[in-house]
């Protein structure tokens, strides 16, 4: 399954000029509000006719403005999960799910009703009306409804944006199951929440002011110092993989990364599981010598890769830690004082690290 698109669409205040490719796995489209992310989803789904563009899924041309091709939404076989769920208010949860199943292409492969109900934990909700569901429950039903229509690809437009923290945690594991499970459904995932993307995405596309600024594998883009201003200085930071090797009785777990071991509290994953760690650039402190007498024990030997000065007093430092890459954000003054240059060996102190729970699976 591949999606390839190029779009050009003029809005009142900006012009969207985008070209991107999405393969298997979760391709995340990240950008601030108004960057044009939803327009991309709407164009792929067929809810918007761009001024200019070409969209191809596998070998089927869904849109080609030059040739006058426009496949209507109901013939595209793409499932869309909208931010506002959009359940049919006059139908029960079960009937909403059946609505999706009714229009699945004849003989198409995909999950059955019971599979989806089990996958998303909808057993208790089947007889309920959408008006009586919580936001998280609605999104689960909307996701199930889309899955039952047996799409070749899922389009998700900020499916978690309207949910609070606990409700997000309710949905995220299901999205991971979807990514890692036997369905292997490709997903185009639009979001402006870096934590969701760090946890879910395989491929990351950064959009700003209506055009693509960076795209590539998640680990590469997140570790790219040039991406720091795009993600926001507080949100930027590398994502690395780690294996859980021990859980201490004091609630501290030990994880192995390629450059050594680190200790973290609150790791839910079981021993042997592979998890994603999100290491915020602003939480990585650099030291020329191996520090002693620190309250933080997470110190990794690293090599400076590149130095990326920012517009302000800060600089983003790309680091190599074993086979992983890290980002550190320091002041330009510190770069000078420490004499940071590419190739320099030093030590990274990880002040805080967020674990993206759940296994990675690939």
């Amino acid at each position, binding site marked *: 399954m591949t999606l390839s698109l190029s779009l050009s669409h003029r809005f009142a205040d900006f012009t969207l000029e985008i070209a991107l490719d999405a393969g298997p796995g979760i391709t995340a489209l990240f950008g601030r509000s108004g960057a044009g992310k939803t327009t991309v989803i709407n164009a792929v789904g067929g809810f918007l006719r761009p001024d200019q563009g070409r969209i191809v899924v596998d070998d089927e041309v869904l849109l080609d403005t030059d040739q006058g091709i426009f496949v209507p939404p*109901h013939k595209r076989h793409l499932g869309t999960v909208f931010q506002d769920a959009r359940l049919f208010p006059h139908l029960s949860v079960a009937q909403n799910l059946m609505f999706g199943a009714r229009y699945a292409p004849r003989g198409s492969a995909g999950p059955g009703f019971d599979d989806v109900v089990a996958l998303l934990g909808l057993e208790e909700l089947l007889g309920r009306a959408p008006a009586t569901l919580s936001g998280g429950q609605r999104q689960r039903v909307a996701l199930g409804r889309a899955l039952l*229509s047996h799409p070749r690809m899922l389009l998700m437009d900020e499916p978690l944006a309207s949910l609070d923290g606990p409700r997000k945690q309710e949905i995220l594991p299901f999205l991971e199951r979807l990514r890692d499970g036997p369905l292997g459904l490709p997903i185009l995932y639009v979001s402006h929440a870096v934590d969701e993307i760090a946890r879910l995405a395989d491929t990351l596309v950064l959009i700003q002011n209506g055009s693509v600024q960076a795209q590539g594998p998640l680990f590469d883009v997140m570790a790219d110092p040039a991406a720091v201003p795009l993600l926001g200085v507080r949100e930027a930071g590398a994502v690395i993989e780690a294996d859980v090797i021990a859980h201490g009785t004091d609630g501290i777990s030990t994880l192995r990364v390629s450059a050594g071991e680190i200790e973290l509290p609150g790791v839910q994953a079981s021993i042997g599981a592979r998890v994603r760690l999100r290491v915020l650039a602003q939480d990585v402190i650099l030291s020329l010598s191996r520090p002693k007498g620190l309250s933080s024990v997470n110190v990794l030997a690293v090599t400076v890769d590149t130095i990326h000065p920012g517009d302000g007093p800060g600089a983003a430092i790309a680091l190599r830690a074993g086979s992983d890459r890290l980002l550190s954000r320091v002041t330009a003054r510190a770069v000078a004082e420490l004499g940071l240059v590419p190739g320099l060996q030093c030590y990274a102190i990880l002040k805080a690290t967020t674990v993206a729970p759940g296994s990675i699976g690939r």
Partner: protein
Amino acid sequence: MTPDAAAWDALRLSLWVAVWATVLVVPLALWVAWVLARREFWGKALLNAAVHLPLVLPPVVTGYLLLMAFGRTAPFGRALEAVGLQLAFHWSGAVLAAMIMGFPLMVRAMRLAIEAVDPKLEEAASSLGAPRWSVFARVTLPLILPGILAGTVMGFAKAMGEFGATITFVANIPGQTQTLPSAIWSALQIPGGESQAVIMVVMATAVAISAVLLSELLARRVAARIAGT
């Protein structure tokens, strides 16, 4: 005090005319309401004005215009008579008059209902693979059902009570074109006819109240289903 034969005839004819008028005009009103609610096109304001015309014209004027168009010597009238359909001075003409007079009321109620439906729900349905017609039948229609019911009842009530255009277009022939309002008016012209007039007033009131109660009941059921109670 019992209704005489003329009163029963008038009630029967009024119900007959109102039912026919309602059944025939609902699909058209729904379509026009849909077009006005959802489509942008040149001349939309003009169509809207035309739809509302019967509401603001004196009914006698509407009746006279119908006579000019569908009278036995008028162009449409002659064409229709060639295929065996006579409208002027015939109960079918009363159906046409009732349709035209009830049309704006129906369109208004249905248009409001359609405008209240979030087009995003229809988008969601099409994203699941539902063709346009299925989206309408399975999503839009159930959601606008209360509005359709309200419009239908209003149109039916208007058809039951239509007087000015009807009497002008099809006259007031007892047993043939004399509807309940025409019969009441006639009874009031005859000395001693008042008791029959009162009986027919009670009949008209009873029909109107039943229609409103029925539509309330149906609308409430639909609303309850949507609320999930």
